[in-house]
């Protein structure tokens, strides 16, 4: 009997499970072990993945252990001052070399047989040097920890196993122009407000992955309670039409996405109606995370086109394909002022039916300390583990995944058939795909197309 390669089987299965013409995805995709194994190889071992921020490891020797798919990696600052990402698997007997989440070590010594590695992953040696316990077949240079390719962007640490693949700039493409407005907009840059929250959700990673690509529509229903208590603004009687700014501009490129909320909508929600020009409003009401003191830096660092976007409709939520979720949103602070919550999530698969949800909170370094503390509290109260917004999401994803367990349930499809189509406003930069109007399925479908491209790539 001829053995059919798994790739052939999966390509055939994928063509059955994704109806590109009608924009439907089989629910079976959320509960298929073969697909999952291929995702680990083709997505999580190929994509640029978000692993944290360099302010978590400011000093030589500082490290954190993170996940790339199901692979543990050590993210460390080496003697050269650079951030290195190395597989946390000893080349000798596959023991985890590093056993704590974070710390500082000039040498990572495997506790099993003592093979030792530098923070840059290079092999120092094995105990009893004269006996050459690594043998004489491989040189020391060949016995370092496996190294991922690393790129820092606005201090965010990205890594990929695709050593010869696209650069991070190419990977982000046109969307980088917009991401700069969040991650790379001040002289000091962002910093983390502490080690991330980590929790387990009993759901397939794609349920959260596709939602991150600008699913604004669910806000009205799933997050209705937050609208009801007035935490999303809006006039009382029209809250569900106006509150979370359903009308805006969605952006998409290479599966990445951002949702831009018109500044006049946010301004009206916060301050009532007003006749400010976009430039005046940018002064009076800087984008989330930018304090008045930081505004001059923002104006210096951003191009005229970028400033135009920030004044008209700054990006506030979205995702980075395949598994990062962004919320840079306005949020009331405990002193009664309107501040911000700057949040990034990563969605890392832990089996076909489970993922780890990691949550980072940020502030611009130039933010006053007492404001940072209030931003951290606001972010914690709104998002992540106990966030009154996101706790409803973590309840939804497991249900979707469970639906896929039923042999009939998995014959249903996820439908992306409410489409705006590209309709870039005349004054909007000609960058990425632009969808203006009531947020629809366009960007989320683009997420699936990016998924499909990677899954079927040779």
């Amino acid at each position, binding site marked *: 009997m001829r053995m059919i390669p798994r790739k052939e089987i999966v390509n055939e299965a994928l063509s059955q499970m994704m109806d590109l013409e009608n924009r439907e995805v089989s629910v079976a995709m959320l509960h298929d072990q073969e697909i999952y194994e291929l995702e680990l190889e083709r997505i999580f071992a190929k994509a640029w993945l978000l692993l944290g921020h360099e302010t978590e490891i400011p000093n030589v020797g500082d490290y954190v252990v993170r996940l790339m798919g199901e692979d543990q990696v050590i993210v460390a600052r080496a003697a050269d001052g650079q951030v290195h990402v190395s597989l946390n698997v000893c080349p000798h007997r596959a023991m985890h070399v590093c056993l*704590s989440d974070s710390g500082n070590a000039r040498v990572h010594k495997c506790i099993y047989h003592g093979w030792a590695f530098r923070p840059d992953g290079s092999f120092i040696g094995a105990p009893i040097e004269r006996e050459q316990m690594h043998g004489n077949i491989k040189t020391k240079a060949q016995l370092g920890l496996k190294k991922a390719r690393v790129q820092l962007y606005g201090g965010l640490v990205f890594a990929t196993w695709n050593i010869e693949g696209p650069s991070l700039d190419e990977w982000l493409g046109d969307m980088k122009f917009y991401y700069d407005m969040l991650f790379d907009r001040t002289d000091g840059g962002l910093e983390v407000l502490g080690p991330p929250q980590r929790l387990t959700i009993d759901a397939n990673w794609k349920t959260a992955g596709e939602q991150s690509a600008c699913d604004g529509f669910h806000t009205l229903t799933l997050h209705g309670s937050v609208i009801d208590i007035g935490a999303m603004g809006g006039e009382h009687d029209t809250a569900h039409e106006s509150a979370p700014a359903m009308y805006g501009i969605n952006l998409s490129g290479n599966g990445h996405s951002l949702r831009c909320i018109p500044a006049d909508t946010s301004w009206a929600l916060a301050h009532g109606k007003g006749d400010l020009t976009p430039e005046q409003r940018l002064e009076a009401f800087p984008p989330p995370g930018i304090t008045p003191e930081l505004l001059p830096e923002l104006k210096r660092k951003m191009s005229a086109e970028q400033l135009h976007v920030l004044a008209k409709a700054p990006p506030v939520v979205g995702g980075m394909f395949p598994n990062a979720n962004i919320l840079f949103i306005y949020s009331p602070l405990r002193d009664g002022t309107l501040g911000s919550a700057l949040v990034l999530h990563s969605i890392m698969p832990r089996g076909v039916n489970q993922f780890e949800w990691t949550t980072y909170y940020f502030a611009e370094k130039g933010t006053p300390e007492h404001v940072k503390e209030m931003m951290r509290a606001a972010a914690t109260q709104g998002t992540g583990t*106990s966030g009154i917004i996101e706790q409803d999401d973590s309840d939804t994803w497991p249900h979707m995944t469970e639906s896929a367990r039923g042999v009939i349930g998995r014959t249903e499809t996820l439908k992306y058939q409410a489409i705006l189509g590209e309709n870039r406003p005349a004054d909007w930069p000609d960058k990425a795909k632009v969808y203006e109007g009531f947020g629809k399925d366009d960007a989320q479908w683009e997420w699936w197309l990016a998924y499909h491209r990677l899954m079927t790539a040779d």
Partner: protein
Amino acid sequence: MSVTTASVTYTREDQRRAEVPYGSPVHNAVTGFLIREARLLDHRHLTEWATMLAEDLEYKAPVRITRRVQQWDQEFGTMGHFDDDYNSIQTRITRLTTTTNAWSEDPASRVRRFVTNVSVWETDLPDEYEVSSYLFLTRNRAEAKDYKQLSAERNDRLRMTADGFKVARRSIMIDQVVLGMPNFAIFL
């Protein structure tokens, strides 16, 4: 040291003075308070539970980090799963009790809080006590056959008022680094 670890000590052992003996009236009163509190929460009497909180409440559950034993004292982060005060707790309760679409707890979990190992210390203030208690919590939802579980040590500052004890501070030291439950739509 990197910013990922906190030098904050959430246990506030420095504020503990003489330990209040087990079985004494004060110890009994504190234990009774914690048991009543658990009962109110288990039965979703959230508004009544809120009357047990002081208005200067600090309510935190710092994230935990796996550390080498040499850094045993640096295993809690500056970030938390809760980072709340009195007003934000009230907002949570309003959402859970007055809206009809707080889906993370609708249908509600069946939660049971087992509170044990209560230790009480006097403090520099005559009406305030430092209290350490162990919490074991089971949470079952919908038709799940298993339970989401959580164990933690809580370090409280309790204040005696004309109205009885109030929680002025709660630091919840959870034993998991990666939580097994998908959210904290419940109070600990």
